[in-house]
């Protein structure tokens, strides 16, 4: 490549750079000026930006930037601002009775939306995104409430949980009749048949099974098996079950007892959020 003599390409009339590969020569078509200037401006901007914001890693630290903050701080500020704007609702809600919130138009709207969001974050992992529940995790859409379905009941349950860590938590414990040697296997079979017949009239049961039920189960589930909310004893006669209802499952539950745990949310969520959740769950279709 020589600097002094320009070689002109015959076809295009453009001079070449002198670079040649396998007989192909590179034409000297420089980039448009505006493009080059734009590139220079971005380079300058990049350097300025580097000094304004955190950029250079140091040995134990990093360069904090002229502003001393990152764009992430802006996100935090905005979140704090949103919280501040919401506080006009949430502050009032924290001290109000839940019934009053439900009856206040704008607060109810706010609570429903806040509840929907909080449910997705905190409750959906166990109860499902549609609150439809799973085996062992109650369906919150239906009309059966083991511990009660009024706004206050729901709020209490969310606050303190079931078999949770709080002193006021809802608690019950069904005996394990086989493991604790309260009933024999034969007796458990009899009573399981009776329990199955409570919700399915076509199954024949024995008087013995009924007697065992009255002696052992009725104190919590009631003589007619309709359950007792104060104790959180489920209604055994309706169409809804928390665990599977085939006979083997009933035998299993009577033998070894079952009971899930719902966390205590008091202290983990603020009062306004818990009230919002209660209002949202109440509205799903089964609220009392």
């Amino acid at each position: 490549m020589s600097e002094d003599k320009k070689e002109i390409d015959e076809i295009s009339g453009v001079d070449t750079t002198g670079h040649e590969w396998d007989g192909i020569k590179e034409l000297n078509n420089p980039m448009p000026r505006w493009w080059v200037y734009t590139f220079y401006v971005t380079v300058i901007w990049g350097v300025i930006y580097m000094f304004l914001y955190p950029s250079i890693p140091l040995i134990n630290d990093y360069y904090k930037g002229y502003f001393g903050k990152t764009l992430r701080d802006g996100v935090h500020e905005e979140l704090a601002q949103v919280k501040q704007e919401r506080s006009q609702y949430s502050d009032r809600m924290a001290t109000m009775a839940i019934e009053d919130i439900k009856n206040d138009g704008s607060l109810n709207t706010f609570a429903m939306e806040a509840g929907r969001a909080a449910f997705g974050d905190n409750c959906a992992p166990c109860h499902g995104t549609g609150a439809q529940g799973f085996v062992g995790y109650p369906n919150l859409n239906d009309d059966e409430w083991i511990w009660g379905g009024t706004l206050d009941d729901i709020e209490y349950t969310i606050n303190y949980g079931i078999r949770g860590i709080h002193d006021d938590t809802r608690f019950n414990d069904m005996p394990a009749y086989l493991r604790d040697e309260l009933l024999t296997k034969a007796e458990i079979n009899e009573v399981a048949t009776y329990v199955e017949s409570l919700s399915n009239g076509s199954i024949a049961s024995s008087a013995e099974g009924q007697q065992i039920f009255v002696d052992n189960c009725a104190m919590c589930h009631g003589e007619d098996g309709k359950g007792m909310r104060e104790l959180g004893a489920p209604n055994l006669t309706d169409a809804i079950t928390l665990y599977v209802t085939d006979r083997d499952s009933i035998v299993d539950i009577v033998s070894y007892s079952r009971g899930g745990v719902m966390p205590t949310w008091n202290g983990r969520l603020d009062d306004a959020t818990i009230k919002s959740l209660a209002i949202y769950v109440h509205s799903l279709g089964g609220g009392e």
Partner: protein
Amino acid sequence: MADEDMNAKTPNADASEIKRAKVEAVNKAEERSLYAPRKKIHPQRAKGKFRTIKWFMMLFTLGIYYIAPWIRWDRGEGMPDQAILIDIVGRRFYFFFIEIWPQEVYYVTGLMIMGGIALFLVTSTAGRMWCGYSCPQTIWTDLFLVVERFFEGERNARLRLDKAPWTFDKIRKRVMKHTVWVIIALMTGGAWIFYFADAPTLFMQLMTNTASFDAYLWMGLLATFTYVFGGLAREQVCTYMCPWPRIQAVMMDEETLAVMYRHDRGEPRGPHKKNETWDGRGDCVQCRQCIVVCPMGIDIRDGMQLECIQCSLCIDACNGIMNKIGRPEGLIAYDSLKNFERRKEGKENVFRIIRPRTIIYSIILAVVGFIMLFALLNRSLLDVNILRDRNPLYVQLSSGDIRNGYTIKIMNKSTSTQKYSVTFSGIENYNLRADGINEYDDNGNPIVTVERDKLRSLKFFVSAPVTNVVDSSMDVTFKIKELESGAEDIQSTTFKGPR
């Protein structure tokens, strides 16, 4: 001086007195380069019937643009009284007696389709008439040129001023011109934002400097674009930015009217001397007036070009010259390509406006227009939207009944609060209940009250004995009836169950 004003003194001058302008078309294809600096165009004012039409169009379109937001329209208490208002916050579009909800943007779609087809129709009939007479870019460029002429004089004076050193006089003229341009630009941006808020209120806010940031932002943006596009960029917008010149060709055919130089009559061109014969030569005396008046900086005699916005000013300029030299008008005129062939064969000029192409465009335009009109006249003031809950699909209740949830949105587009009864059908022995509704009619159907111009979204629960749920998906209907007028909306949906 050769470069003198052409619309000269004597009305019936001889052709030899027509002096030729020293001008070259700026926008010739070979002159056009992405990297070369722009050559400024100093169009001279034309006089003639097309220029008059353009003045009228400018007054007409600008008049609509600036006055429209100030027209009042009484809609009753608590409603905006502006005839044309795009209420972004309230999500309503008001146009005189029409009030459009966000769900009805298809009216806008219809208008856009009509606008597009109308553009096709006009283009296939008479070329880029839109560009030449009613495009905002043309209108505002024209307006800015009026200002430029007022302060800096006609073409030759402007050319001299461009070359002149920076004297006080030049600075004064330039400052005045740009000041007026900026005022016009601000008024343009200002008028735009009046369409989005109550005009008198916003005007007072602007005067007292209390308007919202958005108002200033949009006003500033539009003012900047008006100033840059109309004042500085001018023909560059049409040549380099606008897509329309590139696609218009597909709408044109050989019968389409367009501004054309009749080269069969004009050539061979050349200067003409007094008492010389016109035999054996064309009518074009090479005065270049068509180039001088062209705001796009082209030479129409080079044929059809993408820069040409068909503003017809070259027709006006050429006709003026033809009158002076005693030749018939129309050396440059609206003509069709087919007519060149017709003349070659010794036939008469024919202007075929009605062709399959224009007929089809007209029919489509009429059909879309009628559909729009029909939809608008039969527009219901009640709109209902029903969404069935999908998560969970259905719920079994303790009694064994199956229940489905529905979110029903009732839009009351009327100007008074209305009550609606909601009835359900499709399943025997159903139970219908709405969350938060305590009012029921004699048959046990919920009554929903919706305030005027409001949407109310409610959750409805329908439950039925499991024995009546005979299919995993049953067709059911909701009927929402306005109690006062009896207007109703019947919507079908499904009821999901087990099995």
